[in-house]
């Protein structure tokens, strides 16, 4: 009814050709060069651009199957892993995503090259997912007839990845914006409808540029506000980790500590340190049900943090010289830091740090050293005053905030006073005597060290009197109980006291002549102001060390070795003297990895090569024996007998002309035999037989010349 007659058929619109849209010519090259310019690796970009664009000039193509593309994708994944491993070795887990983004054009290069230098015009989406591939294989095996997967030209993905990589680094101005706009619009140009559609495209592109520019400006300012607000909120609500210690006091159950090596201490001169002190706290509070020690965010304390003088290009730091007449001790510390800003566990009264590579090192009035450095391994020499009796931490009463050194929570005070009374300690007794009395008491049979707490410990509603409960009822706990109780008792008795955390240096490895500090050795103790100096008062029963050591597993030796290796390897990588060896090692590892992948990969190729007999191998096969002398003879015979028809096998031609050949017959037959074997026998002819063939051919040729030509008979 649609009235065929009403309109002429018009021109015919053929089906869309099977051709696959690939990114416009030279766009990828331009994108790669822009990228390399942004990241300042110009030569690399030029090489990649040449590799990616020269396929237009090169006619050979590699016959990759779908399985080959999977293998090539695995190469890309291996490259990703390499980058990931190197980032992880440097401890830059957060930077990993950025490193991937930055090097995307390199990481995806194998796939792109396989796409453009392969005979297949598209890759299948399932190439990129092992799960999808497995599911598809199963589907096919079970006859479920799955939908054919999406196929696309990988160049689009590669282009998108390269453009994404443009924006990886912060730079000023509009370079990235302009480059990205140019590249994206270039990619969109072929999609414009020809004719007037091009005008519409240009208008739309112009509008996009204007809006895009406005959009990114808005984003910038919004982000700045958000960032600002977030930073403020963050600082207000979550103090940095080293500004507060949340204790396990009041928690029920087993406390697990890592048995792995955290630090290794090798004493260079003088006495070994007893503790590595990490932090010192003054204020005890129960926050949200958890007993915590903190220094609050007292601005005065922060103001008083002093940056240390940096003596030698960022690696030698001095706080104060060791006084005359005192012997300095020194110890090398090796270990890993996991965050950028951390208090450094160091022997007390450390005055100098040698070979400590850091951006900054500050000392708080409490004697805590806060280091700012890249996460990773550290190896430095700490010079400290071996004589612990004379410490130079700030005296308790010199600042306005000093009251904290005598502060006890109201809720604990009655209990503390009861205990002091029962011990016969009065306020005003000499500090030395009080410390002695407390040491005696905690060392008595009444107290027991345990990390496994149960029962009434820390019942809800009684959280405010955790320390009293410990002193009067349980009398069992770990170092945090003992240290906290000691500090509070000392304060209640009028002796300024502080709470210190860090590691006890106890385990000596005689084989390596160094002390080993494990996670298990994490410890806390009290510091009391006795006779004008801070004295370490460790009241935890001595049994804690043996108990900790009993927990080491059989594998600990191996784990220790690995952790030592890791730190040593890290340090070796960081050291500057390693020279050319180091630069070759990663290349070596990458080379071995790539080699392994390549071997697997090529083996796969050979397998797939066998599947498809066509290709260069078979054409070489066809050429074997084309230099046979027989052809000479055949040419000569053509004048005597009817020539061979096109495509006629030699043998059938011979059968038809045998009679005409007369006495030449047997020779021709022998020559043919040899010729056939030369052409088709995999073993071919030995030199002697080849000689015979040549001789036969010569004789046949001469004989043929002697005979009258076919036309004359």
């Amino acid at each position, binding site marked *: 009814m*649609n009235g*065929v007659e*009403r*309109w*002429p*058929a*018009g021109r*015919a*619109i*053929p*089906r*869309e*050709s099977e051709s696959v849209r690939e990114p416009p010519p030279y766009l990828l090259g331009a994108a790669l060069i822009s990228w390399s310019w942004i990241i300042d690796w110009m030569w690399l970009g030029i090489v990649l651009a040449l590799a990616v664009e020269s396929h237009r000039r090169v006619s050979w193509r590699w016959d990759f199957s779908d399985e080959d593309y999977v293998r090539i994708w695995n190469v890309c994944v291996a490259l990703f892993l390499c980058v990931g491993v190197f980032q992880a070795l440097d401890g830059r887990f957060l930077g990993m995503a*950025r490193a991937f*983004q930055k090097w995307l054009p390199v990481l995806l290069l194998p796939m792109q090259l396989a796409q453009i230098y392969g005979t297949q015009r598209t890759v299948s989406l399932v190439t990129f997912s092992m799960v999808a591939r497995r*599911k598809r294989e*199963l589907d096919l*095996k*079970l*006859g*479920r*007839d799955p939908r054919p997967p999406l196929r*696309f030209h990988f160049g*689009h993905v590669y282009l*998108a990845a390269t*453009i*994404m990589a*443009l*924006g*990886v*680094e*912060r*730079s000023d101005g*509009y370079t*990235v*914006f302009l480059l*990205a*706009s140019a590249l*994206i619009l270039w990619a*969109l140009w072929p*999609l*414009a*409808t*020809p004719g*007037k*559609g091009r005008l519409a*495209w240009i*208008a*739309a592109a112009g*509008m*996009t*540029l204007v*809006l*895009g*520019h406005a*959009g*990114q400006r808005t*984003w*910038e300012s919004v*982000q700045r506000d958000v960032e600002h607000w977030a930073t403020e909120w963050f600082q207000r609500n979550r103090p940095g980790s080293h500004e507060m210690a949340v204790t396990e006091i009041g928690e029920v159950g087993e406390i697990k500590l890592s048995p792995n090596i955290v630090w290794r201490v090798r004493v260079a001169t003088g006495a070994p340190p007893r503790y590595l002190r990490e932090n010192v706290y003054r204020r005890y509070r129960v926050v949200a049900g958890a007993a915590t020690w903190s220094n609050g965010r007292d601005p005065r304390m922060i103001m008083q943090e002093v940056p240390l003088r940096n003596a030698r290009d960022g690696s030698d730091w001095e706080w104060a010289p060791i006084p005359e007449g005192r012997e300095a001790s020194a110890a090398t510390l090796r270990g890993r830091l996991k965050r950028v800003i951390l208090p450094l566990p160091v022997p007390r009264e450390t005055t100098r740090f040698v070979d400590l590579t850091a951006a900054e090192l500050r000392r708080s009035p409490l004697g805590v050293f806060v280091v700012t450095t890249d996460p990773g391994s550290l190896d430095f020499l700490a010079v400290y005053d071996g004589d612990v009796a004379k410490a130079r931490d700030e005296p308790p009463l010199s600042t306005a905030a000093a009251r904290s050194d005598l502060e006890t929570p109201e809720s604990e005070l009655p209990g503390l006073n009861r205990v002091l009374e029962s011990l016969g300690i009065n306020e005003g007794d000499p500090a030395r005597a009080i410390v002695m009395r407390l040491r005696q008491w905690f060392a008595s049979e009444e107290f027991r060290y345990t990390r496994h707490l149960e029962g009434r410990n820390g019942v809800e509603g009684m959280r405010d009197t955790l320390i009293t409960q410990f002193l009067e009822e349980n009398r069992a706990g770990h170092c945090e109980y003992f240290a906290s109780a000691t500090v509070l008792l000392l304060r209640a008795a009028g002796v300024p006291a502080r709470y210190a955390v860090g590691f006890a240096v106890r385990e000596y490895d005689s084989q390596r002549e160094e002390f080993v500090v494990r996670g298990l050795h994490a410890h806390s103790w009290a510091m009391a102001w006795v006779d004008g100096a801070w004295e370490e008062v460790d009241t935890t029963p001595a049994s804690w060390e043996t108990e900790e050591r009993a927990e080491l597993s059989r594998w600990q030796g191996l784990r220790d070795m690995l952790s030592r290796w890791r730190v040593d390897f890290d340090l070796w990588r960081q050291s500057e003297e390693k020279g050319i060896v180091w630069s070759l090692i990663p290349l070596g590892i990458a080379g071995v990895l790539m080699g392994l992948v390549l071997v697997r990969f090529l083996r796969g190729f050979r397998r797939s090569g066998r599947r498809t007999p066509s290709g260069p191998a078979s054409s070489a096969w066809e050429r074997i024996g084309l230099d046979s002398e027989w052809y000479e003879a055949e040419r000569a015979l053509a004048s005597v007998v009817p020539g061979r028809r096109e495509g006629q096998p030699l043998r059938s031609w011979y059968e038809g002309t045998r009679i005409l050949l007369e006495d030449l017959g047997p020779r021709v037959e022998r020559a043919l035999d040899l010729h056939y074997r030369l052409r088709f026998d995999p073993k071919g002819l030995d030199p002697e037989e080849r000689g015979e063939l040549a001789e036969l051919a010569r004789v046949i040729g001469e004989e043929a010349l002697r005979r009258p030509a076919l036309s004359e008979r």
Partner: protein
Amino acid sequence: MRLLHYFYRAGGRWSTAAQARVTRAGAFLLGATVVSAVGALDSLNSMQYQIFSLLTMIVLVGATAGALGRRGRLEAERTLPRHATAGHPLRYRVRVRNAGRWRLAGARLSEWVEPVLPDYQEFRQREEPFERKRNVFDRVFKYYRWLWLVELKRPARFDVSAAFTLARREGASVEMTLTPLRRGVLRLGPIRVLTTDPFGLFLRSGWAAIGAATVVVLPKRYGLPALEMPGSSRYDLGGRVAAAGVGHSDEFVGLRDYRPGDPPRNIHWRSWARLGRPVVKEFEDETFPRYALVLDTLLEDGPDQCFEEAVSVAASFAATLDTKESFLDLLFVGPRAIAVSASGHGSAREVENMLEVLALVEPVRDPGGLALLRKEVGLRSGGLSACILVLLGWDADRRALAQDLRRKGVETLVLVVTEGLNHRPAEPGVTFLPAGMVRERLLTLRFGS
């Protein structure tokens, strides 16, 4: 379960709607925009946000321009062949004329068939083949069951035509391709006219005024090896010229002495003259072998997949057997009675008609059907040279059917379509065709194996 169905159904509708509005390039660009948004969150350390902003604006401008663009209005008419084959692309032409008031630039045509999404009952009850082999996650969420059901209901894959530009009132003939996915009658409804935004990312669709049309989709067919059918005139290429009538074209065999009663018209006068005694020409009735192709349509509770494979196998035989020199009867149990379709030498029916019958055959769930089939085959077995049984199972009744035929001296090829790879012990004279591997198994088939 109901919730899953709800979500899948909503997702299915959504994805259909999205596909009608976004081109592949657009989908890629949208994906890239989302990816770049992740990096854009950190504007202090990277410039990703500039790229993100640019991509977002391209999407916005494209979508707006696409939404504001003009819809194409066309008058159209399809030129369709009568038949198509499942799984094979069908090319056809659509004549169009721009009926709108404006020039239509960069338009494409796209067939539109309302997608049928599985309803809840079906989603709950029908199991995907070998669903038990899926992992626990897939079995719980049944997403693959959903995909399978959706795919099962898709009649065909339609390719979008090439872009064309039509001035006002101008006409053109546009080549289009569709690939029917299953046999039966494919009904084609309206055609959409797709136009894109200036960037080619988003689609705007109008409708072409066009009448509905149907194509009979013949069953999928497999390649068969050259079968040496018993009774056929093999190795005899070009030797015989078949006459027009059935059974009347007698063939000259030789000469023999006259016997009383021989018709005088058969006397070979020249030989009589040479030998001096009457000699007659001897003829032999030229008979063509007759084959039966029996399709088992009695599907008790097996999966439809097996039935479809069985139809394909039957269609392969119907299309491949050399019926210039033979007759082929197709027998199966229809909804009411035994259906017979014959083709072959001299028959008015063509192979295509038989395939058309096979295109429309439906499974029958009638317990008495097999006895009926056995009786009918038994009645016909007298004149048969060979019989091909395409069965959906191998139970006592079906075994008896094959035995009946063999007992009567009919060469019988038994093909049993089974669900997947459940390996059965080999039985002489029976070929098992696991669904999904039918193609491979058929290629190794030999008659009498």
